[in-house]
C-alpha cells in the first residue's frame, strides 16, 4: 500500500499493519526532519508532490520490491505540507519471512523513493530564507 498524507505519519500503525504470521521479520524506516543540513540550521521543511505521478511511482516501487523479495506486506507513506524538525516525512514498513530479506526490501524501497518519486522539499533556514532542494542544481 502507498499513501500521501498531510497528517502526521503513525509509525505504530504502519508497523502493525505489515505484520504477518509467516513473516519473522519487520523492518520499519522513518525519515525525519533534521535540525542541521551540513552546517546550516533547518527550522522546517515544506514538502510538495506531483500527486498522481508520485502515487504511480510509489506503486511501481511497491510492485518492484514485491517482485524481488518475498514480501508479506509493505507500506510506503510520504507526508506533504509543512513539517517541523523531528517530524516524520516518510515511512516504509516491510515484513518478510527472514530478516535479511526485510532489511534489503525496506532499503531498496526507500532508496528508489528518493531516486525518482516526484516529491520536493523546501528548506526553511534559520536565517529566514527558503530554498527548494533540487540535487545537482
Amino acid at each position, binding site marked *: 500500500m502507498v499513501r500521501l498524507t498531510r497528517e502526521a505519519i503513525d509509525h505504530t500503525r504502519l508497523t502493525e499493519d505489515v505484520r504477518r504470521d509467516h513473516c519473522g521479520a519487520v523492518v520499519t524506516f522513518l525519515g525525519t526532519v533534521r535540525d542541521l543540513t551540513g552546517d546550516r540550521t533547518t527550522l522546517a521543511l515544506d514538502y510538495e508532490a*506531483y500527486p498522481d505521478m508520485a502515487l504511480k511511482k510509489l506503486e511501481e516501487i511497491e510492485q518492484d520490491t514485491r517482485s524481488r523479495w518475498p514480501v508479506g506486506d509493505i507500506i510506503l507513506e510520504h507526508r506533504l505540507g509543512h513539517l517541523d524538525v523531528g517530524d516524520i516525512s516518510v515511512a516504509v514498513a516491510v515484513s518478510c519471512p527472514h530478516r535479511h530479506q526485510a532489511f534489503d526490501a525496506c532499503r531498496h524501497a526507500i532508496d528508489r523513493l528518493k531516486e525518482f518519486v516526484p516529491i*520536493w522539499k523546501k528548506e526553511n533556514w534559520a536565517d529566514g530564507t527558503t530554498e527548494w532542494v533540487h540535487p545537482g542544481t
Partner: protein
Amino acid sequence: MRVLLFARARDLAGAEAIEVDLPANATVGDLRASLPKLCPRIAGLVERSAIAVNNEYAADTTLLPAAAEVALVPPVSGG
C-alpha cells in the same frame, strides 16, 4: 499544450503551468527546447529536469501525444 510546473520551477515562473504551442509530431525534446524561450528564468532548471508525459518519465525522443498530461519534473528531493 499545458506543462505543469512544480517546486522551484513554479516559484521562478510564478505560475502552476506554462502554455506551449508545438507543431504536430513534436517530441519531448522539442518541448524541452521551447521552455527556456517562453520562460528564461527556468532555463537552468529545465536542463536538469525530467519531462513526464502521462505520469511517466519520457525520453527526449518520445513523440508528444495529442492529449497528454505533461509536467516538468525538477530533480526530486523527497524522503
